[in-house]
């Protein structure tokens, strides 16, 4: 081709390329798009109705609070025991978060390593599967004995549970880059690291984020299960320990309060990871886009 300067533009006659993008603004209520409100209000209404029904049944049937406390009593316990409970919540969340960070780091690093070398994947992946299918409850005691440090043991247990979805999803994602795009990178003589950076990693992002959503919840479950196994033997006193303790002492309202905190944490983790996924994918991935048909 010659090196003559490119002229401004070819003449056009009004095909689709002549149109310019116009973005319509949706009506907003309290900062949220009007159409998202029903999705928030409907489940909220159901929840409030269920709580009212629960409280009513407990009062009418006069159920003793060590069998089934009403929601009001649980709420009261939550406030009164807040200091102990929030301390335990903090401990559990710290382990959950650390395990998730470790799962992301190691999962992504291993996935990249595996896709660079088929041999490494073939020889190591089966062991990752073994780790995944072994129930954490059954190896937690061993880990606690071997590692010694209780916090580290809990972290390892939670990590074991959270690790696999990230690993397998990221491997799938790294290998799912469009075949023609891979060819295109070949044509332009892209290096391995260029292909990784500009093609495989972005292509893997939606898969990784789907894995992250699963692993976030699993990390919490792993942390709680490990705490149960460690029980009172440990010095750590996470939420699971509070549940065990309340069970022994028949302080059922407190047990419920701790349970609610675990559920709320799980929901929060799910919402945060979903929000992160949405932030990353909203411009381009089908899963994060509302289609205007």
């Amino acid at each position: 081709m010659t090196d003559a300067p490119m002229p401004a533009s070819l003449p056009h006659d009004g095909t689709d390329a002549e149109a310019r993008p116009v973005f319509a603004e949706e009506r907003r209520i309290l900062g949220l798009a009007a159409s998202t409100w029903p999705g928030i209000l409907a489940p909220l209404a159901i929840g409030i109705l269920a709580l009212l029904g629960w409280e009513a049944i407990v009062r009418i049937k006069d159920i003793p609070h060590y069998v089934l406390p009403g929601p009001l009593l649980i709420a009261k316990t939550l406030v009164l025991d807040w200091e102990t409970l929030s301390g335990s919540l903090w401990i559990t969340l710290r382990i959950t978060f650390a395990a998730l960070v470790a799962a992301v780091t190691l999962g992504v690093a291993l996935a990249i390593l595996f896709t660079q070398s088929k041999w490494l994947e073939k020889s190591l992946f089966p062991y990752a599967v073994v780790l995944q299918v072994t129930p954490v409850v059954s190896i937690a005691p061993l880990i606690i004995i071997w590692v010694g440090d209780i916090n580290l043991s809990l972290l390892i247990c939670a990590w074991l549970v959270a690790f696999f979805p990230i690993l397998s999803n990221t491997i799938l994602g790294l290998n799912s880059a469009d075949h023609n795009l891979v060819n295109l990178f070949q044509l332009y003589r892209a290096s391995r690291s260029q292909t990784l950076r500009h093609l495989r990693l972005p292509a893997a992002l939606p898969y990784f984020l789907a894995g992250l959503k699963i692993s976030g919840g699993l990390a919490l479950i792993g942390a709680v299960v490990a705490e149960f196994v460690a029980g009172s033997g440990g010095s750590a006193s996470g939420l699971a320990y509070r549940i065990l303790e309340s069970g022994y002492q028949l302080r059922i309202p407190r047990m419920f309060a701790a349970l609610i905190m675990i559920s709320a944490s799980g929901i929060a983790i799910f919402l945060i990871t979903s929000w992160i996924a949405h932030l990353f994918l909203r411009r381009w991935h089908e899963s994060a886009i509302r289609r205007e048909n």
Partner: protein
Amino acid sequence: MTQTVAAVAKEARGRPLVAIRGVSKQFSNGTLAVRGVDLDLADGEFVSLLGPSGCGKSTLLRMIAGLGEPSVGAIDWPTSPYGSNGRAEPDLGFVFQDPTLMPWANALKNVMLPMTLAGVGKADAEARAADMLALVGLRGFEKSYPRELSGGMKMRVSIARGLVTKPKILLMDEPFAALDEITRHKLNDDLLALWDRNRFTAVFVTHSVFESVYLSQRIVVMAARPGRIMADLPVDAPYPRDDLFRTSAEYAHLCRVASETLKKAIAG
């Protein structure tokens, strides 16, 4: 390497840009996709590969691009210092049948890709990509993501990406097959205008007789099972070609000739 520019140019004259010699391709599952292809592509010419589905057009085009080695024979680039010993000339553009854009990158970033991979500076790459997008009629869409573009617009981005490095040769694999006729005619005209301006070598795969006659100087007709070349038709009509040409008796006649050749090729 002490030859003068003039001497190199003199030697280059008469030598094809691409010399395909006795090329066959058999896939590992036993399919003989292409058999015994001999074909020269001259510098700056517009050639169409025309043939029915499954006759090995894509396979041949991909081999020219260096994607997949011939099982037998060789593809040489006699005038290129890089494209020898079975290696393809690196200075080429490729347009796939699908737009094949990166969905996570906007139009500008997509067009910048060849330059990003070649290590061209960001500012320079951005300016050249923006120019190229304007040239294919997409000024103002630099920040749009592929999913926000229509099929025709995506194809334009893909062509812009293929041409942004001003390659010696542009290989296109049925680039407009999925588009409606109006858009296809428009893109045909735009492609001819780009070619007229920059005189890259164009290899255009299609199974439309009309498209091949409208665009090219030469039509290579292929037949299937096994894929082979049946005819090499010159299209002796002057450029620029436009709607006048599309409705001329000359065009109708050329189409009839090409169509009959293709029919014979399919019949075997």
